């Protein structure tokens, strides 16, 4: 048939326009030309505009001193630091809020999702109300609510809420004691790492033994015990090589200790609670996707409800949940940019806000911001694809 078509095509040379192959190539060339032309046109306009507005181009500005302060920095940062360092600080803040957000949203989401399926009427209703309320209210509004209506309405430092004279909550944030390291402090993190390694080894050994002999081992509790006990032991042996620095009211504000700024809390609350409502739905549909026969069979084998959920239902539900969960995590990462609206110093606030205003180099700054989000999106989806491949059903 193809041969006939080719023959017919040769016979009617004049009607090249009816040849699908030719048309597709011609169309693509036209499209490419159009894209290139538009690109060239925009480039022309942009260079002209930049020249007439005296805006520099290139990424040279990253080495210039920034001259502004950032209210939350994970690494040392001062006004004399460069724009490049400000970018790193902002990047770390975005990573910090996203990481905390993902952890909390997952925990709350799992609890609410399972609660929606509970056979306890009132708990199931409450979970439904939670999901239907929070996911139908814009995230930005929730951030504003937490920030302006709740955290900014807290009392000032002098009348702050106080717990044990060590934890203080006021308008300026949440203050809690900070450990001050002394000589020999390094033993504690080392002991912690050793504990993690031992716990990992124990869980692998227990799993292998379970597969071979069917004998169970409480590897979770043992692992947890080792992880907690080793650092404590290390601390006792070296004579507690740290002290707690308590926050103290000095003048108008607290000094010392660790402070969690209200911007961080507001964004974290809103982001975790909002995303949790979507994760709850993902969890619920994942669990519903596991057929009832699986639960019944597990009950028939004598597994109790909690064990059924943990050993039979959730492992199978995870497979269904992973792809939508990935997109929720990506959404959370992208939504962390809304922190800019209340002044949480994350990527958009610092780079697309302050740096852009000071340098005026819109194209480089926006490109940098977008590149970061694209990279993160790619990394998270790569990781989740890897995880998905590991957890996927191995069919024979």
């Amino acid at each position, binding site marked *: 048939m193809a041969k006939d078509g080719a023959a017919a095509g040769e016979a009617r040379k004049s009607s090249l326009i009816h040849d699908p192959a030719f048309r597709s190539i011609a169309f693509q060339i036209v*499209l490419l030309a159009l*894209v290139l032309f538009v690109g060239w046109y925009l480039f022309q306009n942009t260079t002209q505009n930049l020249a007439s507005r005296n805006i520099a181009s290139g990424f040279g500005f990253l080495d210039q001193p920034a001259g502004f302060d950032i209210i939350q920095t994970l690494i040392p940062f001062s006004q004399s630091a460069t724009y490049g360092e400000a970018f790193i600080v902002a990047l770390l803040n975005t990573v910090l809020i996203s990481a905390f957000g993902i952890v909390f949203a997952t925990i709350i989401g799992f609890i609410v999702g399972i609660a929606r399926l509970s*056979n306890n009427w009132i708990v199931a209703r409450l979970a439904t109300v939670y999901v*239907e309320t929070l996911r139908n209210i814009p995230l930005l*509004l929730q951030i504003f*609510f937490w920030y302006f209506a709740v955290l900014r309405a807290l009392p000032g430092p002098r009348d702050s809420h106080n717990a044990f004279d060590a934890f203080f909550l006021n308008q300026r944030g949440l203050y809690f004691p900070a450990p001050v390291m002394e000589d020999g402090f390094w033993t504690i993190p080392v002991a912690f790492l050793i504990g993690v390694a031992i716990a990992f080894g124990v869980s692998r050994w227990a799993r292998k033994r379970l597969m071979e002999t069917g004998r169970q081992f409480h590897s979770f509790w043992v692992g947890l015990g080792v992880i907690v006990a080793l650092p404590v032991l290390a601390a006792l042996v070296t004579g507690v090589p740290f002290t707690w620095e308590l926050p103290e009211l000095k003048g108008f504000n607290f000094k010392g200790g660790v402070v969690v700024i209200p911007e961080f809390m507001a964004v974290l609350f809103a982001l975790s609670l909002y995303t949790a409502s979507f994760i709850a739905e993902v969890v619920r549909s994942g669990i519903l996707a596991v057929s009832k026969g699986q639960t019944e069979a597990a009950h028939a084998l004598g597994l109790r409800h909690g064990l059924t959920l943990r050993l039979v239902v959730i492992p199978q539900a995870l497979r269904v949940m992973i792809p939508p969960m990935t997109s929720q995590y990506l959404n959370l990462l992208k939504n962390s940019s809304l922190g800019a609206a209340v002044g949480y110093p994350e990527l958009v606030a610092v780079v*697309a806000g302050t740096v852009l205003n000071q340098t005026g180099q819109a194209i480089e700054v926006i490109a940098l911001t977008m590149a970061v989000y694209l990279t993160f999106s790619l990394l998270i989806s790569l990781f989740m694809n890897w995880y998905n491949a590991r957890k996927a059903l191995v069919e024979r």
Partner: protein
Amino acid sequence: MSTDTDAYVFTPTPPQPPPANTVGVVGWLRGNLFNGWFNSLLTIAAIYLLYLTIPPLINWAFLSATFSGTDRTACEASPDGACWTFIKVRFNQILFGFYPDGEQWRPIVTFVVGLGALVSTVFRTPARRWTVLFLLTLYPVAAFFLLAGGYFGLTEVETAKWGGLTVTLVVSVTGIVASFPIGIVLALGRRSNMPIVRSACVVFIELVRGVPLISVLFMASVMLPLFLPEGMNFNKLLRALVGVTLFTAAYMAEVVRGGLQAVPKGQYEGAAALGLGYWRMMILIILPQALKLVIPSIVNSFISLFKDTTLVYIVGLFDVLEIIRVSTKDANWIGLEKEGYVFAALMFWVFCFAMSRVSLRIEKRLDTSHRK
């Protein structure tokens, strides 16, 4: 063997009533709230939680709240309650922004007509096709002229004066309507056999989906002026619309692609066998089936777009949330953030919840599969 006279007659004993603790209110309570110690504990905890939250909330929002008056002093009598006077005084601005007082019938007419037409398409009305056609073609044009004015004897209202719910609705409705055709083209392009077309569409879709809307809006507000020839300028509303439309189009493309993939291959082959060309195959055979499959997802995109319109404050527009935020900064009304944001939340919730119900309804009605 036995005589006929003493034949055993079977008289069933009447069934005993079920145990008292499994029927009625008590039975329901035992079955649903107090089955097992863990559930009982949960129930008690939940009831305690409700006791802690609901009565104070009702007290704050209704019993001790102030509804009357025209300024702050009216609320001073009951400081424990909400000051709804604030919302009452600002209500006009929340709906229309700075739209001139005498002209506010125009947004009202626009939305009532639009909403009426939209609602009539959800229910089975006779002229549904025509209503849909009206909504997609004549209505946007008419709405623009009615809102912006400047023709037919209507006074011109520049877009800088639009605000509140008007802007929220204009941005979200325009965003969804304009992104729909672009999304379809992108989805078709992504499934095309032509490598250049396909890669162009994939790059656009993945680029846009990988970045937050806030950065797209930043781009629309600071980079768009750089891209255009000197002297040419966009107003803020148009900038927001360009950003929102491009952003939504990428998501719409993925929604439509889902529909295209769900149409069985036989449909494509059948259309090709009938001798239909690419466009006729798509328009007559494939798209009607694909789009029908994804109507619920389109409504969901609309819901998320509606929530995302709160971000247009980036380009300097005054949507509902921004109007309320600015109002709470007003020296006369300072400290009323709770009232403002609770009211805004209620407004968004009503819209989004109603739309999600509509989406469920459409999903049920369009479900022509024979799944049980």
